[in-house]
């Protein structure tokens, strides 16, 4: 939470775009001590609705999701946690190269979002994408193999940490350039409008990004296109308070990021990212509006980045106090305790879920380690989707034309000449 001064409790007023922050009424700073029973009941209101909703203690349990769903969330969160911790370890052991950004602290956000997304929907994310790939069902083994740069990786080892992709699962990419995924995601939503009209079964696009992305031109151009063309897309901003080391306040003229769609009359909401059910419900409402009314929306999710920007970032810009505070804000132990307190899980069942994750990730590491590296014959296979004459296949130091080229028969070049 380093440097973050915006407070969800403050953000009650709606802006011109219908922005609201009611679902995040429990401050991320105070929520761990606040009794959960005051949580708002989130009963599928239309995105952008202004009404404040009240809940009763009796209904609060369903607001956190049914038992099966909550166990599912926990299972997903634990898998991401274990995966990311082992990925960090594999990075320090040089099994993983390049940049490596972890979802540590964002687990409830990730599983909540992915629970809202249908198989028929499309997902675009930024580079902090491992958790999304796991929760989207790409398989810990193939995701780890991608991190290892192996041929069984989800992108055949050609993409790495920032570029998880599975066309079949409709995860159309993690993207490493900040904001780069927004225009293509918007265009994917445009393509959906040619497939059929709006309706409850229509497909939609979810485009995830970080808080820092809301300052780049691609964000604003994309939102504007989605608004004027009425595209079925939900833009999800994961606000962990920091773009690398730059705070939201220092980077954004409107630090209440869910309001930044107001210029495009796009409804926005701010949600507590530690509550996976709240995240799911809010995302589902916005996706429903996208499907049924072609109403694009912005969902800002208040989350935590427990570590540095990437594996190699020691986050020295955080004070000792902030680091201590962060430890207390870790959403996983809190969610576990909540499930046990609510009688959904007992200690033994929780341990079993954790053991399952440990073994799944251990298997994934073994799978990745055993997967072959892409061979040199693969180097030029994916530059073009269609074969093209004279596509360069030169290795460093190769002559520009093969020896003996001048003794070969000439072919096509004179076919159309004037003589």
């Amino acid at each position, binding site marked *: 939470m380093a440097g973050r001064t915006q407070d969800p409790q403050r953000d009650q007023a709606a802006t011109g775009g219908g922005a609201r922050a009611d679902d995040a009424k429990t401050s991320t700073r105070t929520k761990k001590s606040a009794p959960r029973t005051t949580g708002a009941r989130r009963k599928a209101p239309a995105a952008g609705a202004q009404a404040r909703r009240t809940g009763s203690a009796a209904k609060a349990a369903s607001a956190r999701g049914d038992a099966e769903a909550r166990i599912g969330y926990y299972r997903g969160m634990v898998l991401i946690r274990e995966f990311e911790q082992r990925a960090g370890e594999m990075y320090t052991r040089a099994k993983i190269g390049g940049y490596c950004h972890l979802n540590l602290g964002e687990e409830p956000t990730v599983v909540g979002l992915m629970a809202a997304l249908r198989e028929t929907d*499309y997902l675009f994310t930024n580079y902090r994408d491992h958790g999304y790939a796991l929760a989207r069902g790409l398989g810990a083994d193939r995701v780890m193999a991608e991190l290892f740069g192996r041929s069984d*990786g*989800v*992108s*055949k*080892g*050609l*993409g790495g940490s920032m*570029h998880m*992709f*599975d*066309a079949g699962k409709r995860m*159309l*990419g993690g*993207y490493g*350039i900040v904001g*780069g995924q*927004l*225009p*293509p*995601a*918007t*265009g*994917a939503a*445009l*393509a*959906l*409008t*040619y497939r059929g009209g709006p309706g409850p079964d229509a497909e939609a696009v979810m485009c995830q990004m970080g808080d820092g992305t809301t300052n780049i*031109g*691609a964000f604003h*151009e*994309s939102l*504007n*296109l989605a608004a*004027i*063309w009425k595209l079925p897309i939900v833009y999800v901003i994961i606000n962990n308070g920091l773009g690398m080391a730059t705070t939201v306040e220092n980077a954004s003229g409107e630090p209440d990021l869910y309001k930044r769609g107001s210029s495009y009359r796009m409804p926005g909401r701010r949600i507590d990212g530690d509550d996976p059910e709240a995240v799911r419900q809010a995302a589902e409402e916005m996706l429903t509006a996208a499907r049924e009314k072609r109403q694009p929306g912005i969902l800002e999710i208040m989350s935590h980045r427990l570590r540095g920007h990437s594996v190699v970032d020691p986050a020295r810009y955080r004070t000792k106090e902030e680091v201590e505070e962060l430890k207390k804000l870790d959403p996983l132990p809190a969610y576990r305790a909540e499930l046990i307190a609510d009688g959904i899980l007992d200690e033994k069942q929780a341990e079993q879920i954790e053991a399952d994750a440990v073994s799944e990730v251990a298997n994934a590491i073994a799978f990745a380690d055993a997967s072959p590296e892409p061979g040199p014959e693969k180097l030029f296979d*994916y*530059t*073009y*989707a*269609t074969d*093209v*004459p*004279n596509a*360069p296949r030169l290795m460093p130091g190769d*002559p*520009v*034309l093969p020896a003996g*080229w*001048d003794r070969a028969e*000439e072919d*096509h*070049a*004179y*076919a*159309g*000449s*004037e*003589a």
Partner: protein
Amino acid sequence: MTAMADNAQNEITYRQALHDALREEMTRDENVILLGEEIGIFEGSYKITAGMLAEFGPERVRDTPIAEEGFVGAAIGAAMLGMRPVVEIMTINFSLIAIDQIVNHAAKIYGMFGGQTPVPMVIRTPGGGGQQLAATHSQNLEVWYAHIPGLKVLAPSTPADAKAMLTAAIRDDDPVLLLENLSLYNTKGPVPEGDHVAEFGRAKVTVPGTDVTVVGYSRSAAIAKDVAHRMAAQGVSIEVVDLCSLRPLDRETICRSVMKTGRAVVLEDDWLTYGIGAEIAATIQEGAFDYLDAPVRRVAAAEVPLPYAKSLEKIALPDADALIRVINEQLDATRFAR
């Protein structure tokens, strides 16, 4: 296609050829959509899309806001889902606003994700100076894109090629930048009837000759052809190689021509340093060194932000006179007997 040059009644403009290709592909394939600024109601800044809005409707001929990064990127995403968007960028100068989407996304998505999803899109955009549009609106930036693996870059010099190349670009599964040229839009030439699809990655010899090879593309290939005809009258046999495809580059056709002529001059509208001519010259010196009788020469633009004033604009840009002068210098240096 120039073989039909005698069929004069089939002559149409380069502009019309592009229009016809778009219209035919829109009719043939409903996944082809057009995106760009002022392409609908205004019918295109250079009128390539005239009449298309009325014929195909606002969903397939989609006017965009002034947001190149947004709409070029949107075309990428639409292409990933199976559409075949053709984007018009009003001039290549404005493509710089979209360069992250073109270079970091369109060119990378197929390869970076292991060949899972092609990006079948076309960017049509004109380059070229000489219209007194001053420094920011007169550039030839195609080399920026010709440098990028994953992109295909085509540069037609005739109406027939314009039509065949745009058709090929739309039907291809990779992102293609089709370089048009402001000063070619009104030029006329024969265009054969029927379905003609250009081949990527092939240069062609548009005028055969034996004394000097002149390499060009787009407007410079048209000038080279004109110069070849003029100098033929003086007893100089020029072979013109029209690159057609800037990426991939057909190095063999260039070198094969030099193997025959022993001399080479490159004409390019772009600035000299690091230009396409530099790549051609390097290719020739390596691929055809043993056949060269003289150093490869380049005729390119003066390296300044192009001035508005006609007097300065004119002398800064390469033209037929400059090409003729350099050809003659090269012939004289090698004691060519006329």
